[in-house]
């Protein structure tokens, strides 16, 4: 009796499994034609104006910007064939490429480009007005069908550098109310709303679908430029680094980003795969709370910099996947000039501490876990180095959101003396790398200057670099500013995190772009 009941339950369960299983099998593009990329983020939001990091990188296959970059961070023609900078350096007139169509068949022109840039200034889209963008894109003017002028309160250099950012890509104006996208203007009391999750751009691949498993793209037959080899691209969302590595080694994906750092050497020795280490622009540093009495003395802050062996940390904890910082900004930034590194010299550190009259120093140190490569491990190593010179700074950790909450408090409420962070600027210009994290208008909680660093002379140099139209003068201003902050040492300068890409052997055309980005758009089997 029981047996028959139970066995019928089994049958039902098995039947249910069979009914629900086919739902999972949905990729019907044959594997040999689709290029598969495994990434660590499960992406749910594709709104271009808020996309950063890997999400922006995925959107690079679909959207194109006026200008584009390469490995070196140079500003190259994109949807704009050429541009002219006005005498005063405050306006850029773009000559747009002709014969470009959006994925929905709409023509690309100055009107569409102005519309796309205008979304950045629309509070309905961004949910807010952004003062930085207001100044950056002060005025957008359609001159004729293929000519667009952008006026900025900053300089043309900075504008062009910013426009490399994926979020400034062109989207079809018609698409904001199609394909499930929706846009409503505010009416009286009711606020407007914008949902844009089906991007329609001009890129070599068009968006097909975003599922919990991944994102699927298809080659765009009417693409204006060189046609990619693969008919489709699939991004697979695989949060665990070791699993991404296995997927590649099992031949079930073609390319992965960010493998487990500890396996990079083994992967380099494996003939079945190729390893490409792209230099990154993400500065990893430990902000020193410059409002704390003992840390107000620059000698103490310099001592902390001399006390830590950055070279050893990069080699032993990051397995070489980082570049020791020689300045506050990465080497491929416009205006970078080498001001360091602080060599490892515990003796000098002790001497500086003694000169400052500091002994038995205990500092309150916090770092996130799992946000940046080996973050908490590095924090622990830093603490070990500091203990050698007589500074006790045992790090504490928490999840990233809690940690951010801890950082964003005014100086008088801040209990932390040292806090680790990683910052990647929005474009390859030193002014951008410096402004958001060290300018005195950006002191937390106003901005991300978590060291509460306030040097008016330094900030004035950055301000001047934001507005001076002369490239050479700008470079000099930025270099002077880098020297000042390096001497002031409001941070323990660590390194710039690399961006490792691994792909199966027998492929060519895979490269990277400045700013933590992979580029496999023109990937193809070697010799084809």
């Amino acid at each position, binding site marked *: 009796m029981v047996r028959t009941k139970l066995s019928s339950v089994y049958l039902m369960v098995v039947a249910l499994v069979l009914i629900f299983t086919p739902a999972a099998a949905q990729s019907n593009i044959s594997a040999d034609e689709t290029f598969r990329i495994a990434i660590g983020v499960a992406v*749910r*939001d594709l709104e271009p104006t808020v996309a950063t990091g890997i999400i922006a990188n995925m959107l690079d296959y679909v959207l194109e910007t006026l200008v584009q970059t390469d490995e070196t961070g140079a500003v190259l023609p994109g949807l704009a064939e050429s541009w002219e900078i006005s005498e005063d350096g405050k306006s850029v007139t773009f000559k747009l490429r002709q014969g470009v169509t959006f994925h929905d068949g709409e023509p690309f022109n100055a009107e569409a480009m102005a519309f796309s840039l205008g979304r950045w200034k629309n509070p309905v889209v961004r949910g807010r007005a952004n003062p930085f963008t207001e100044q950056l894109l002060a005025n957008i003017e359609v001159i004729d069908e293929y000519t667009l002028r952008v006026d900025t309160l900053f300089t043309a250099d900075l504008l062009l550098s910013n426009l490399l950012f994926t979020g400034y890509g062109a989207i079809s104006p018609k698409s904001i109310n199609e394909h499930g996208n929706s846009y409503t203007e505010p009416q009286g009391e009711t606020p407007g709303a914008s*949902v844009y999750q089906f991007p329609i751009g001009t890129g070599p691949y068009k968006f097909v679908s975003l*599922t919990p498993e*991944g994102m699927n793209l298809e080659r765009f037959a009417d693409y204006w430029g060189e046609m990619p080899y693969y008919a489709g691209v699939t991004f697979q969302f695989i949060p665990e680094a070791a699993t991404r590595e296995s*997927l590649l080694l099992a031949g079930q994906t073609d390319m992965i980003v960010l493998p487990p750092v500890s396996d990079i050497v083994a992967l380099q020795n494996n003939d079945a795969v190729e390893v490409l280490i792209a230099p990154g622009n993400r500065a990893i540093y430990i902000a020193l709370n410059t409002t704390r009495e003992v840390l107000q003395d620059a000698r103490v802050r310099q001592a902390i910099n001399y006390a830590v062996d950055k070279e050893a940390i990069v080699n032993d904890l990051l397995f070489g996947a980082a570049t020791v910082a020689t300045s506050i900004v990465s080497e491929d930034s416009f205006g970078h000039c080498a001001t360091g590194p602080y060599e490892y010299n515990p003796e000098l550190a002790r001497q500086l501490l003694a000169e400052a009259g500091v002994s038995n120093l205990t500092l309150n140190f916090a770092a996130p876990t799992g946000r940046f490569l080996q973050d908490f491990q590095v924090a622990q190593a830093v603490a070990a180095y500091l203990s050698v010179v007589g500074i006790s700074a045992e790090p504490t950790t928490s999840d990233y959101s809690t940690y951010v909450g801890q950082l964003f408090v005014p100086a008088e409420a801040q209990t932390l003396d040292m806090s680790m962070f990683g910052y990647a600027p929005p474009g390859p210009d030193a002014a951008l790398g410096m402004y958001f994290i060290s300018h005195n208008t950006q002191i937390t909680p106003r*901005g991300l200057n978590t060291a509460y660093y306030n040097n008016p002379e330094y900030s004035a140099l950055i301000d001047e670099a934001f507005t001076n139209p002369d490239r050479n003068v700008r470079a000099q201003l930025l270099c002077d500013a880098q020297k000042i902050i390096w001497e002031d040492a409001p941070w323990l300068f660590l390194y710039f995190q690399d961006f490792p890409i691994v792909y199966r052997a027998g492929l060519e055309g895979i490269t990277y772009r400045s700013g933590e980005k992979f580029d496999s758009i023109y990937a193809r089997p070697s010799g084809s």
Partner: protein
Amino acid sequence: MWRYVLKRLLGAIVTILGVLTIVFLLLRFIPGDPARLVAGLTASPEEVEAARERLGLNQPLPIQYGIFIGNILRGDFGTSLFTRRPVMQDIVARLPYTFQLALVTMVLTTVLGIPLGILAATREKMWVDHVISVGSLLGISLPSYALGLLLIVVFAVNLKWLPAAGAGDGIRSIILPAFTLSLIFLAVITRITRGSMLEALRQDYVRTARAKGLPNHQVLTRHALRNALLPVVTILGLQFGGLMSGAVLTETVFGWPGLGLLLTDSIFNRDYPMVEGLVLFIAVIFVFVNLAVDLLYAAIDPRIHYG
């Protein structure tokens, strides 16, 4: 019986309301500011305030709570702070993945666990029993993370029999994650079945049955097993409820896009409405699974009646 079900359902509403209230409060008391996270780290204080206002997080807590409960009663589960889409859309998209994994795991656990438990009980203190006991101890002790990676390396990387991760390959994709999950539950079910069977086998009615000269398999299945099954069914029910709320570690290792990953992502991002929607969903599932288990008791044990 219907009166019983109705009574239980009324009780369920109180339970779910309680769970929602606790989650609502917990989310607002843990540190981390969603307005800052939504607006961005380099956003100005004005932008952060604008975001706070748009998200309704500037209202006093009791008002936020009132709006929250009111919306749920109207069937509006809110929109994600980040994607600005209804949270149910994301939950429903991931439900099939979680459901498949839970079902296959349950099937594996049941068809293997109960027979193994019976086998161990009937061979008490013999080598079969010892092997099963040690095996299940191993199953409980192995972290699913390590086991999952081990299985991937063996079956995907070396043997190339099965997909290493993802859900794109139908039933083949589900084998490794389901096996990883079921190994842990299998250990529990085997041990409980064994203990419960041993107790039943010592009862007078079993001795009577044997004395009557019934064949051994009839004594085991009709008399002993039927009585031993109640605790097993309870545990299976709870496990099913747990599996439906997502298996975070296994989902992470296998890149299986279930509810567990969505829940942890949302907690880490302080996506209040998404967490609240998921918890509501999970609470409802638990309540119904429990009710189903209780009703199943009556089917297994004729002495149980719900008047």
